């Protein structure tokens, strides 16, 4: 099905199942520990050997010698694979750096060997006996140094966030020079780690030249193709499965070393091998969100009209890598006649930078939305009023392009009322509650919606059971449930009459999970397949498909009505289709909007920040399941608190690695950090987006929340911190005097 014109009325509009809160259909499995994740396929693989990964101990250089004598002689060892004996390996299309290092080492903890043994304990012990001698070379590990000579660069996150090197509209320099009110400020965001709870893990089993891999991956087709490319075998020889994914946040968009080494280890051992990447290897071995250094200039007239806006972001990555596109939102979020948007990309020898939840906008909004707060203060305006004053209903670079839907102003106004924004004292450091300095902050939320082709197969079987098969993944996003809801709505059956099968390369290729494009596109693909299945049902029943209604387990046409199940009496009906997109997404700008409100308390004695209240108001098209969508947003808000207050991969610029590379050193929010969170979805059905009239929401919730926290901290303390995370050392000495 090609989506080329705005969606008209369709069966989803009934919203008898879609659009309603529904508990996750996989909930009983997840809460009882019976949903099988990547490392947990005992039923299929009875007697696996265990792999243990050895990571490079230098940041840059080469292996000068490998001595496996002791490791090979260790009890239980079956095989050891290094680059020396792995055979010729390719590199995945989506990988910047090869997944098995040696003899050249590209980054710290790059995998250099897998030790396969009878048991996990034996593999771990033997891995400690692998002797590697290194010749260390000088690496480029300091972003600030490297940015001094870094060239301009455009780039794409590979999941839809793209930006050219320099974008200009009008005459920024002249307009900025002439502006009566100006802001010229620098901001920084650190390297961040996805830190999903399930480690990267895979089980690989060969049968002859055919390979089955159970893994933990967000994008089955990308991982499947890249594993074939890396091993140099046809992808038809590989089955790639990921039915349950214990979190990804962008880290599992790509093929990673666990799958490659499990396959190589299993081939060398002659039996199935399971590998979980050890937690302390994850931050340096896998990808991370690159640090940014951002420069924002805004000029405005005294009435608060932005006349000039410039945003430059510098980041670094491995050779051949791409920039963190932190300037994306500044192209679209606010009006302004004169604009300059640019990025710089430095080459670094730190681990590979790549997409993490809302790549681009997440760190970009952290900076831009502080800058807007600062500018409002210079103008003596309320920060909400300043944002509303500069709202735009068209793409500021191409005014002929309208936003399909843009309810930013309503999000801000509605949120202000709900949150009690009028009680905020605009003068900072004025409100005390015992030992706490109390402040409120606001930020806009913004993230583009991305169209992705997405396929599905739908079966109508005995008893009227509808089975959906698609390689879509559920990474905690609720895919199982919203896909069941979509099929139920389309076929007129209850949700429990639908079986959803996901995450298998034998199923039609879907959008996959990333870039908040999963839910809307994957369900649109299921919609397309269901339209075909409805036609097949009508045809078999001899109904006129144009006026056939599917409702309450029945099929109706004119005055004829029959049970849907009857259509399968003569044998299962199968339909397959995919949603594809025409030019609507170019004609209109498809984006999602919101407003984040945060209240914090900062301890007047210690400078510790505690979040007291949080609210997000979102407008993101039709909300397919308000319960799971709300969970996406509160989860993103939580990650935003992490980014604002604690998350930072500390770089050792001497040796070139992230020092705090485990879940003790890399701090993420815990229960005690997060209060009750409120989320409101505004009514919206975006008929320019897809037949579901839905857009993404999982990343919107993250874009802006960090700045809302930062602005609240400033409102509490009067100390502006522009370098994330806002840890107490950055403002303690400048806090208001303790009388």
């Amino acid at each position: 099905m090609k989506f080329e014109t705005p969606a008209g009325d369709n069966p989803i509009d009934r919203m008898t199942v879609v659009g309603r809160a529904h508990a996750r259909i996989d909930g009983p499995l997840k809460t009882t520990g019976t949903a099988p994740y990547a490392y947990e396929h005992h039923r299929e693989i009875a007697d696996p050997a265990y792999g243990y990964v050895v990571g490079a101990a230098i940041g840059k250089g080469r292996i000068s010698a490998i001595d496996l004598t002791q490791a090979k002689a260790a009890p239980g060892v079956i095989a050891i694979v290094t680059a020396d004996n792995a055979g010729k390996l390719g590199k995945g299309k989506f990988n910047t750096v090869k997944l098995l290092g040696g003899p050249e080492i590209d980054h710290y903890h790059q995998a250099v060997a897998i030790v396969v043994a009878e048991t996990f304990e034996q593999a771990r012990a033997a891995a400690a006996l692998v002797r590697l001698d290194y010749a260390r070379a000088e690496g480029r590990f300091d972003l600030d140094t490297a940015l001094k000579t870094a060239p301009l660069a455009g780039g794409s996150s590979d999941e839809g966030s793209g930006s050219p090197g320099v974008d200009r509209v009008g005459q920024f320099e002249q307009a900025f020079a002439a502006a009566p009110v100006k802001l010229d400020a620098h901001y920084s965001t650190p390297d961040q780690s996805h830190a999903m709870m399930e480690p990267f893990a895979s089980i690989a089993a060969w049968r002859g030249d055919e390979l089955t891999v159970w893994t933990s991956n967000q994008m089955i087709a990308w991982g499947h193709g890249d594993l074939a490319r890396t091993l140099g075998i046809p992808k038809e020889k590989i089955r790639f499965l990921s039915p349950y994914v214990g979190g990804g946040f962008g880290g599992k968009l790509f093929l990673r070393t666990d799958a490659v080494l499990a396959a190589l280890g299993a081939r060398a051992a002659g039996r199935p091998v399971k590998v979980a990447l050890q937690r302390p290897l994850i931050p340096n071995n896998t990808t991370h969100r690159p640090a940014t250094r951002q420069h924002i200039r805004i000029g405005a007239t005294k009435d608060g009209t932005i006349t000039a806006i410039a945003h430059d972001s510098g980041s670094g990555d491995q050779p051949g890598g791409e920039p963190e596109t932190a300037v994306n939102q500044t192209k679209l979020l606010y009006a302004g006649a004169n604009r300059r948007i640019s990025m710089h990309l430095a080459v670094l020898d730190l681990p590979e930078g790549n997409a993490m939840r809302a790549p681009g906008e997440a760190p970009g909004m952290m900076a831009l939305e502080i800058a807007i707060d600062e500018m409002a203060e210079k103008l003596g305006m309320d920060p909400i009023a300043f944002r509303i004053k500069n709202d735009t209903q068209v793409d500021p670079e191409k005014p002929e392009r309208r936003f399909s839907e843009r309810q930013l102003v309503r999000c801000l106004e509605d949120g202000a009322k709900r949150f009690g924004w009028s009680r905020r004292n605009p003068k900072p450091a004025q409100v005390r509650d015992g030992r706490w300095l109390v402040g409120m902050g606001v930020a806009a939320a913004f993230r583009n919606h991305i169209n992705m082709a997405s396929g599905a197969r739908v079966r109508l079987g005995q008893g009227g059971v509808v089975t959906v098969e698609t390689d879509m993944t559920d990474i905690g996003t609720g895919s199982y449930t919203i896909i069941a809801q979509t099929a139920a709505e389309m076929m007129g059956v209850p949700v429990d009459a639908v079986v959803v099968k996901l995450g298998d390369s034998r199923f039609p290729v879907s959008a996959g999970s990333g870039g908040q494009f999963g839910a809307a596109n994957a369900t649109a693909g299921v919609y397309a397949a269901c339209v075909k299945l409805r036609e097949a049902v009508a045809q078999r029943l001899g109904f006129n498909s144009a006026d056939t209604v599917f409702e309450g387990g029945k099929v109706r046409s004119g005055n004829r009505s029959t049970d849907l199940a009857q259509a399968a009496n003569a044998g299962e009906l199968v339909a397959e289709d995919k949603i594809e997109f025409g030019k609507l997404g170019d004609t209109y700008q498809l984006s999602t909007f919101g407003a984040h409100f945060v209240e914090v308390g900062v301890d007047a004695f210690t400078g510790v920040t505690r979040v007291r209240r949080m609210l997000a108001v979102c407008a993101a098209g039709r909300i397919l399941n308000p319960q799971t969508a709300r969970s996406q947003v509160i989860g993103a808000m939580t990650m935003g608190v992490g980014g604002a207050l604690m998350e930072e991969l500390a770089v050792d610029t001497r040796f070139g690695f992230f020092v705090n590379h485990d879940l003790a050193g890399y701090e993420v929010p815990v229960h005690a950090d997060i209060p009750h969170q409120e989320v409101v979805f505004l009514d919206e059905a975006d008929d320019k987006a897809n037949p579901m009239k839905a857009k993404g929401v999982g990343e919107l919730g993250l874009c802006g929340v960090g700045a809302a926290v930062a602005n609240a901290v400033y409102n509490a303390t009067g100390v502006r911190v522009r370098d994330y995370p806002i840890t107490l050392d950055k403002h303690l000495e400048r806090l208001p005097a303790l009388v």
Partner: protein
Amino acid sequence: MPNMPEPVVSRRGVLAGGAATAVVAASPANAARVGERPAADPAPVKVSFKVNGERRDLALDARTTLLDALREHLHLTGTKKGCDHGQCGACTVLVDGVRINSCLSLAVMHEGDDVTTVEGLGTPEKLHPLQAAFVKHDGYQCGYCTPGQICSAVGVLDEIKRGVPSHVQGDIAASPAFSNIEVRERMSGNICRCGAYSNIAEAIADVAGGKA
């Protein structure tokens, strides 16, 4: 990039010199005594404990954690390995009613113990009240930390009942009472990166009598 006239750095060399300690400290080879012959595996150690009411007799490599005994030997994969270092709480189980990180405990230390895992609390067909509350309040997303959160919550409610004090109590000598902040403090060893905390707190409050 300048090409350093770099001396060859060997593991032995790095160990001898102090400057590169940070590099070697993070390497698995650090655990090995250079030149030492690997010993043969010691004989398996027998251990018996109850898991979810059923007596299990195992002969294990003494290095096997309780977590790996459950997951890899008894195929009870409900208990999750998130970090294997006691940092995330995904492996939380109840031993004689008290919650522990099963990754920080060797299986052979549990002779005669009574271990309860998430599989022992309820089944998909017959959920434990906390499991049902997690479903109702959407107290999870990816589901990987969930068994640990639920086992931990069972332990927390019992700790409050037994009067075990916590860091956020106003009066350490008084009996703790159920509250949102009390639960959040006690649950803080269980990380949920999906960020379902707000919903988890409500699920636990629901079971505890809605007092949050």
